[in-house]
């Protein structure tokens, strides 16, 4: 809807007023007073959780609203790289709060307004020195300090980077309180009473399958929602969309039989496919929810006003979204295991039918969990914004890593291998006398070329599990290469595997590897951490660490 003032509102209405989730763009974007609000509305006023991007002022507020004003828990990030978090009253940050500067200097204590200290507080400098006492005044104009003690940090000269005040992340809105209007909308659409939505995000407070949930009815509502939305869209744009979209709608209109009572591997694959289609489709209530959530996520964490300190918030929010979305999915497919308890669907017994076989490899099965089911749908959409945050957060290490990598990669294989401590038996093709004259013979230019190329695909995948599989095939390629040279009986030991993998990692030249590792670590499922993929990932992490540790110059 467009207002006469030129403002635009896009979202849900009630009685002609914004009500529910909506986005409002206000002001002229060429002038200095433009804002975009994404969040909850009640009878025309901002109320509940919302994100305000104030383009004029250059700041972004993530927090609670009441009667069009910032009110309650919230945080602000500014273009100057300052981060505030605390309690807001009538648009103003007052009382206990936290402020972090770009260089890591931070203040925790009483505020009169954003940037104006007033009362007891602790100011910690990036050097680690601390002042604790009564502080008052705006930081831009000079702060009056009285009755204070100063603690000098002499013993520990290197302060851990990214040190944060104690209350960091504790004074802002809990992730499961965010975007509830979007979920409510979806529940309405499914005809499920909102009351099963409890503040903790656990929709099944009254037992795993509360009496109020009528599965058949939900599916009818899904079908109705799809066909309504479909017809409406058809009326609006008669023949705009291509055929494959139609097809996906067709297959969504059939109410699936799988995943209702029991779950096996086959029906799980079908269920995954159905969910994938549903999340892609704007006609399906689930697809609308995913679209709304990912848009909200991207407006919150994307754009120019991003701040590295938002990373932990973004990760928590995404995890909460995954958990709550999973609750919705479980309404549709009650056979899925409850949140937090994974089920493992064993793969079919192999043809040789050896019992012992299945026993020896317990991870041989499809792990069903909220993350494994929904990450493939959510992460690719959230990845660009999220990865920028990771890159900002890990910038220092990643720059260091990159400088070393560029330098090392100028070396020929032999020099690099010697430098990385690779056992000479792997220098095949270099050591034999015939080749000594031309150590850079094109055939053997890069011994582990295939492995290197495989690892480079890390950048083209977006979910942690896909990335882990890339790492696994890298190891497989390395094994093939080595067994070709040293005989098929060759077995890796970590003493030998590590340096060779290290070499592959260096040669693969993966940009921002530290950020990639951090990302995988945050979203990796606990069930996988101990397994073989866990060890592979740990080895990649160790390589990155080793690259940062190693002395820079070769020779």
């Amino acid at each position, binding site marked *: 809807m467009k207002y006469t003032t030129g403002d635009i509102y896009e979202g849900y209405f009630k009685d002609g007023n914004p009500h529910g989730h909506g986005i409002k763009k206000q002001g002229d974007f060429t002038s200095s007073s433009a804002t975009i609000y994404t969040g909850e509305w009640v009878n025309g006023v901002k109320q509940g959780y919302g994100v305000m991007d104030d383009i004029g002022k250059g700041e972004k507020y993530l927090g609670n609203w009441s009667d069009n004003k910032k009110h309650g828990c919230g945080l602000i990030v500014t273009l100057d790289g300052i981060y505030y978090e605390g309690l807001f009253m009538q648009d103003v940050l007052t009382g206990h709060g936290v402020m972090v500067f770009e260089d890591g200097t931070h203040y925790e204590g009483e505020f009169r307004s954003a940037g104006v200290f007033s009362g007891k507080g602790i100011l910690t400098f990036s050097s680690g020195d601390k002042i604790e006492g009564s502080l008052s005044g705006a930081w831009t104009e000079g702060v009056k300090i009285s009755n204070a003690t100063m603690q000098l940090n002499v013993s520990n000269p290197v302060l851990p980077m990214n040190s944060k005040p104690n209350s960091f992340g504790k004074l802002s809105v809990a992730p499961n309180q965010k975007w509830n209007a979007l979920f409510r909308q979806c529940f309405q659409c499914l005809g499920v009473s909102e009351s099963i939505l409890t503040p903790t995000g656990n929709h099944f407070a009254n037992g795993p399958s509360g009496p109020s949930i009528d599965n058949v009815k939900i599916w009818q509502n899904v079908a109705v929602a799809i066909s309504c939305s479909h017809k409406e869209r058809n009326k609006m744009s008669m023949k705009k969309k291509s055929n494959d979209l139609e097809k996906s709608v067709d297959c969504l209109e059939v109410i699936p039989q799988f995943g209702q009572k029991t779950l096996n591997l086959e029906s799980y694959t079908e269920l995954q496919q159905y969910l994938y289609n549903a999340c892609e489709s704007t006609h399906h209530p689930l697809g609308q929810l995913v679209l709304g959530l990912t848009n909200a996520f991207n407006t919150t964490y994307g754009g120019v006003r991003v701040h590295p300190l938002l990373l932990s918030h973004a990760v928590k929010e995404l995890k909460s979204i995954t958990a709550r979305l999973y609750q919705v999915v479980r309404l549709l497919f009650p056979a899925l295991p409850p949140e937090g308890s994974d089920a493992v669907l064993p793969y079919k017994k192999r043809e040789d039918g050896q019992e012992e076989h299945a026993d020896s490899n317990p991870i041989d099965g499809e792990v069903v969990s909220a993350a494994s089911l929904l990450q493939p749908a959510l992460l690719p959409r959230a990845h660009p914004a999220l990865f920028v945050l990771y890159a900002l957060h890990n910038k220092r290490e990643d720059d260091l890593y990159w400088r070393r990598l560029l330098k090392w990669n100028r070396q020929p294989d032999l020099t690099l291998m010697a430098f990385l401590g690779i056992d000479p038996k792997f220098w095949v093709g270099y050591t034999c006398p015939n080749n000594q004259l031309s150590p850079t013979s094109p055939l053997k230019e890069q011994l582990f070329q295939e492995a290197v190329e495989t690892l480079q695909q890390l950048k083209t995948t977006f979910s942690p599990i896909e990335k882990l599989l890339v790492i696994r095939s890298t190891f497989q390629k390395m094994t093939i290469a080595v067994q070709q040279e040293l005989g098929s009986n060759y077995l890796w030991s970590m003493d030998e595997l590590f340096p060779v993998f290290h070499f592959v990692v260096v040669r693969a030249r993966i940009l921002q590897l530290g950020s990639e590792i951090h990302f995988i670590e945050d979203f990796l499922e606990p*069930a996988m951490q101990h397994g073989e993929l866990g060890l592979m990932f740990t080895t990649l992490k160790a390589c990155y660490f080793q690259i940062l540790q190693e002395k820079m110059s070769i020779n």
Partner: protein
Amino acid sequence: MATAPSGTHNFKVVLLGEGCVGKTSLLLRYIEDKFNDKHLTTLQATFLNKRLNINGKRVNLSIWDTAGQEKFHALGPIYYRNSNGAILVYDITDEDSFGKVKNWVKELKKMLGSDIVLTIAGNKIDLEHERTVPLEEAESYANMVGAQHFYTSAKLNQGVEELFLDLTRTMIERYEQNAQTDVNRTSQVVVVDDEAPPTQSSCCSGNRSN
């Protein structure tokens, strides 16, 4: 310390020790004893996943090999993070390798405290005549730091099976002890969580009734 819903214990064990002490051969021996080559994983002799059944308790062991070279020492914490057990291997004919074990013990105690079960393995007892690490010294040291001590020979397949079995048993014991204390701890955590704004009133009333 993940426990799958089915009640299976999932334990992670790291193998630590200097290069050449035979960490990998120990693991390989343990694998070969039970499996033929076909069962090797992608990471071959550097990783083993094994299911055990001890006194009716199902255990899932994930054993991780590590690189033993001195220059990779700093990588230790990345590997032993979240481990339930560690096998510290030295070569009985090499005193330096025993010194390395002592360093690991110190580091692990400092970083993981009693969360991790330590087992020390004196490997290569087939070379008894070349022994340089005195028997009593090794055993009394292990005793002092609360670790089990085993003599093994990957070559002759001595002590390997026993070592892994004993370690697993101790890990189960340790886990059950911790679970006991965890019960108390988690119930406290729940209370703290409940103090979040929505339920604050109930908390206050609870206090008043006290």
